């Protein structure tokens, strides 16, 4: 399963949502599908994308928040899963692309070669960790159709959800994001706070 195909499957449904991504391949591929003001790319602070999403979800309970995370980042903030679970915002969906490698920080290479794997390559199951942390809904998917169904169901639903998608450790075609971090930083809250805006 390819990350880009997963993103394509949910892209139309992200309209009106607050979308927070991690750095690297996830941000670049979402951007490649067409940037929107309601997308925030957290280009550093690995592990904190879900914390940012939690802050949004609690402050705007009527807004759907979609966090698009990765195995490497989540493993840097496993405690954050417990904070999400106990806060239990019913408007937050935590999507985790699990390519079993620290691809975007140098752990991957063209052709899918993994020279720095994460612990998910050796048996760690993030969906089970999220479930055990207290997420009311958490599952792992390996096929595109299953991902699309689970992700759309979660976004349309009313329950804190975690969906771990096993994907290829494939580099994006480009890491280019032609929106400056600060431009992104200011347009994002404007989109979230403007009445009649992206909501």
């Amino acid at each position, binding site marked *: 399963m390819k990350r880009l195909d997963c993103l394509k499957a949910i892209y139309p449904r992200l309209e009106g949502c607050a979308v927070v991504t991690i750095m690297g391949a996830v941000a670049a591929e979402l951007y490649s599908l067409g940037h929107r003001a309601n997308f925030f790319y*957290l280009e550093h*602070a690995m592990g904190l994308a879900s914390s940012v999403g939690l802050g949004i979800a609690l402050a705007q309970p009527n807004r759907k928040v979609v966090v698009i995370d990765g195995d490497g980042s989540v493993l840097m903030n496993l405690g954050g899963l417990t904070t999400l679970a106990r806060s239990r915002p019913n408007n937050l969906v935590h999507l985790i692309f699990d390519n079993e490698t620290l691809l975007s920080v140098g752990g991957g290479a063209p052709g899918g070669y993994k020279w720095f794997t994460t612990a998910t390559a050796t048996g760690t199951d993030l969906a089970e960790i999220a479930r055990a942390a207290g997420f009311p809904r958490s599952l792992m998917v390996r096929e595109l159709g299953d991902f699309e169904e689970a992700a759309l169901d979660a976004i349309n639903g009313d329950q804190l959800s975690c969906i771990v998608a096993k994907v290829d450790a494939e580099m994006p075609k480009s890491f280019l994001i032609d929106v400056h971090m600060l431009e992104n*930083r200011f347009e994002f*809250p404007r989109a*979230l706070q403007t009445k009649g805006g992206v909501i």
Partner: protein
Amino acid sequence: MPVSVANSQVVYDAMKGVGITLLSALPETWLVHLIRLADEDPTMTLVRLAKEEEGVGVSAGAHFAGAKSAMLLQNHGFLQAINGIVGVSLLYKIPLLMLITDRGSFGEKDPWQTEGGKYTRPVLDALHIAHDDLRRPDEVQPKIAHAMTLAQASLSPVALLLQRDLMWEEPE
């Protein structure tokens, strides 16, 4: 427990007074009443963190959504949160109000608190984070208001260091 209930209330009221609606926290002895007040207040969202760095992300998200927030933490919590402060607040220019109980200064009886306290101010200074002490109840409200104003205007982290004289009642 000789943590000052009255002064905790003064600090809490000042935070409410500047429009804070979300607090993220990890407990430490001097913070017990502040966290309890937040927990008992139906108009306050209290996020109980597993580790302090998460709170930096939570506050950034709250800011994006238009809410004012603060973090309650201790010296070691601040040191733990440094990567988030640099990689989120400073890098993205996001206001962050931190109320840090300043353990390890004169009068500290707990040996394990004495190291973290030594480095809090030098690290704040190294990151060019504006900071001030809260020592007397009468300075709490104006300093919290000024700290929030500066954080919002400068789009930066600002720290207030809660001192023993304010938070602890037992004569040492």
